[in-house]
């Protein structure tokens, strides 16, 4: 028997993931729970275990491919059961699970380059729902055909209609999001076409709601693995689109060609990735251009930034703080820390100072709940630390930073940063931040305009800590200074609040012994 394995929801709320690498090949024997693939989710790489003992029959997704959660990515021949005969060709391949309508639908959706639509209860051009639910749909302006039904057989219920209407209100059919969450959460967007769209779009799916055809034509379409509603036609009967067997064959042929082209493109792409970790260049009139897929972590970062910058009006407040006291304190404490097997950087001081300042200016440790029109002031202090990794920016979160001592903070920051860099960090370790710090100065630079880790309200940027000329009592002297860049969400707080917070923070950084009082 063949067991299909669908890409599981490897992280809360995830809609798709990239297959980074297959750890098995077709024909390999696998045991239950043996890792078969590495999948890159939001910001972490996780291993996907085999659900069965058996042999790998077929790998349905290429390394490097973005796969919607729920798509079949691999099939296994289960031990002790006869493998089914090999399908004759690629098209039969997608249609060979004709018994499993879900898989067939998935295959067709892919072939037609359609991200999946239509409620579950829609069959024969009809949505199964009680009159009360249909009326409610009209009342709420919901297309009942698009509602996912939760009732028996997929019947659409009144709560289904309400849920769909609510999702519509929050945009793009997204689930209403929990009020408090990390900005590192992926911004759900339209499922991306799994492979090069150019080939498949050459034969456009008609995507009708209802199509008339002779039973024999329906059978043919089923055998060919195409959806009748997608087959282009000009013919009508009784005002309804009518499809002939010839049109089904023609469309199926075109789909096969498009799929073959896609498959080639994917192979070329993944081969290129494997060889040079780049995806090839192309010549344009202006010169050579390298095309790099905008995917995975890169796209997640992009989406998060876009959302933050376009949602929260940013204002950035800058200040230079003389930190001789901080430098001296760290120098004094370093050996003691080393004696306790810890390496003391400036970061734990900054985290401590930030928490102390936040306690005096709690509104910066907050989040705007747009929907409820309420500002959520957090009574806990989870400080995110931006970490530059090879894959891109990640923000691990030090939870309950207010309750942790300096060395614990130092160790934890180092651990989290290390995990982020080698991508073993868990999603949970990057969630639920309330305030973030980005230490761009470690690489260089004085001031920046950091983007808030939405939906937090503020982010602190640290410039390079070094000696700079400072005027003291009319004389220019060299002093260790730390340039601060604090970006705030101006919807929640004003520039004056930002300035006062930075003043408090500066006080703690100038005189770190004040932290002893905290």
């Amino acid at each position, binding site marked *: 028997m063949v067991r299909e394995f669908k890409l599981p929801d490897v992280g809360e709320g995830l809609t798709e993931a990239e297959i980074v690498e297959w750890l098995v090949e077709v024909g390999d024997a696998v045991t239950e729970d043996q890792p078969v693939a590495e999948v890159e989710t939001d910001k972490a790489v996780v291993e996907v275990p085999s659900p069965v003992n058996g042999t790998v029959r077929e790998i349905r997704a290429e390394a490097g491919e973005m796969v919607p959660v729920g798509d079949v990515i691999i099939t296994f021949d289960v031990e002790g059961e006869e493998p089914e005969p090999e399908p004759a060709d690629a098209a039969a391949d997608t249609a060979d699970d004709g018994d499993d*309508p879900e898989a067939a639908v998935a295959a067709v959706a892919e072939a037609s380059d359609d991200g999946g639509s239509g409620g579950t*209860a829609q*069959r*024969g*051009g*009809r949505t*199964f*729902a*009680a*009159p009360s639910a*249909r*009326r*409610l749909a*009209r*009342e709420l302006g919901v297309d009942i055909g698009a509602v996912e039904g939760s*009732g*028996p*057989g*997929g*019947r*659409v219920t009144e709560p289904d209609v309400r849920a769909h209407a609510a999702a519509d209100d929050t945009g793009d059919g997204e689930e209403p999001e929990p009020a408090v969450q990390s900005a590192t959460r992926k911004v759900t967007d339209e499922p991306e076409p799994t492979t090069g769209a150019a080939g498949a779009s050459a034969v456009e799916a008609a995507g009708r709601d209802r*199509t*008339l055809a002779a*039973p024999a034509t*329906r059978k043919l379409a089923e055998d060919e693995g195409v959806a*009748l509603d997608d087959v282009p036609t000009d013919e009508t009967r009784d005002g309804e689109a009518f499809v002939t067997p010839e049109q089904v064959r023609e469309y199926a042929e075109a789909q096969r060609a498009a799929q073959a082209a896609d498959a080639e493109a994917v192979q070329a792409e993944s081969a290129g990735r494997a060889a040079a970790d780049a995806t090839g260049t192309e010549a344009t009139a202006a010169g050579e251009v390298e095309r790099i897929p905008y995917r995975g972590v890169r796209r997640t970062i992009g989406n998060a930034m876009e959302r933050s910058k376009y949602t929260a009006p940013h204002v950035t407040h800058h200040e230079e703080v003389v930190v001789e006291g901080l430098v001296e304190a760290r120098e004094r404490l370093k050996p003691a820390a080393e004696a306790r097997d810890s390496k003391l950087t400036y970061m734990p001081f900054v985290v401590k100072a930030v928490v102390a300042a936040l306690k005096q200016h709690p509104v910066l440790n907050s989040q705007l709940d747009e929907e409820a029109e309420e500002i959520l002031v957090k009574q806990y202090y989870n400080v995110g630390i931006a970490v530059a990794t090879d894959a891109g920016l990640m923000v691990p979160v030090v939870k309950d930073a207010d309750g942790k001592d300096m060395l614990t903070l130092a160790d934890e920051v180092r651990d989290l940063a290390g995990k982020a860099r080698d991508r073993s960090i868990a999603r949970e370790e990057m969630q639920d931040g309330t305030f973030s710090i980005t230490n761009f100065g470690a690489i260089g630079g004085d001031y920046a305009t950091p983007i808030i880790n939405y939906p937090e309200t503020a982010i602190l940027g640290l410039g390079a800590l070094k000696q700079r000329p400072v005027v003291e009592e009319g004389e220019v002297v060299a002093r260790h200074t730390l340039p601060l860049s604090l970006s705030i969400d101006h919807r929640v707080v004003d520039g004056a609040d930002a300035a006062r917070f930075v003043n408090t923070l500066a006080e703690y950084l100038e005189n770190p012994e004040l932290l002893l009082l905290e």
Partner: protein
Amino acid sequence: MVVGDIATGTEVLVVGAGPGGYVAAIRAAQLGLDTTLVERDAYGGACLNRGCIPSKALITGADRVHGVANAEEMGIHADPAVDMKGMQSWKDGVVDRLTGGVEKLCKANGVNLVEGTAEFDSADRVRVAHGGEGQGSESVEFEHAIVATGSRPMQIPGFEFDGEHVLSSTDALELDTVPDELVVVGAGYIGMELSTAYAKLGTDVTVVEMLDDVLPGYEDDVARVVRKRAEELGVDFHFGEGASGWEPHGEGVKVTTETEAGDESTYQGDKVLVAVGRTPVTDTLALENVGLEPDDGGFLETDEFGETAVEGIYAVGDVAGEPMLAHKASAEGEVVAEHIAGEPSAKDFQAVPAAVFTDPEIGTVGMTEAEAAEAGFDPVVGQMPMNASGRALTLGETEGFVRVVADGETGFVLGGQIVGPEASELVAELALAVELGATLEDVGRTIHTHPTLAEATMEAVKNAQGHAIHTLNR
């Protein structure tokens, strides 16, 4: 005396007080709309006055007579005498009671009743001509108009209804003697209902039908049960023959028919009943004045809210298209009234059930197996013969079956065909199932009262699921 043009205004004007019009008017008035209902003839329309109700009264009378006269098996020996005038006056009493009820309901709900024939002057005004010479007319301005003018029996060339020799279905319900011989042209549902009823009252009935079977549109195994029973009652069928003419013959008539090949036959009877269908009434409305033109079948096209191509003018019931059934008209009437009142109603009915009051009755709703397959479902079918129903046996009516059609994959009930005793009642359950999107499991797990005919529906559902108890599962 000249009664001037009295101009009145109304929010909703309904033309025709049949089951489409009066329901629309009452619903509109309930929703607070100022509503005027124009009726030229009789409240309740064809259904109450000339169709459903009087025919059912006569069919019941005929059943009663026939049932008691053929109950020797039960040990009952009787020879009932039929007083046709008495039966007619009982029937008329029923009709009067119902039509009076409709009028009272309209008034009680605040509907303004206007007697007369409405003609459109423009898209916001009708002229209502009151019946009779010198009765005058009045103009009614409206914001919304609902055309609910219904249908009338269709005539065929050479057979103009005269109520004497050539009868329409309306005339056939008014006879105050039982004819000895009756020629019926048409074996559709009206022809079959009346043929069966008169056969039971003792008439020798000859049915002439152009097609090759009774009840076109019904599946063969359904129609066969009815035809077989009619034949047992002595109805003589002649298929493949069209009525081409008639002439008086003594007191009665001689009807000539012709086959496609040109072979002629003649049949004698006291009268000839022509029941070849009904045609919508749109010719009295001066629709050209609002720019509306009925389609080839005489119907007005409407959208999902019942609105015609002219904004503010709606059509419900027989004028709005097939199926020409009273309950469809009423459902449409409610939708249109609610839509006008701003409610989110629409004609999204999944199925319109239909009943034929033959012997035995037929009740159907939704899709047949073939229609379900055509629509792209993977149909499963379950059937329960009436001869396995305890209640059918105790009624002495064991012909027929209940059949349920469902989607094999999801179990949704898609339709049903019932032929058998009380099929017109039994179909209501399947109509509910289809409309709600109920599954076989839903209906099968619903406990049905024993001993009733309704159990047959539950058994048919379980048969479709492959675990019927009282029949072998196929």
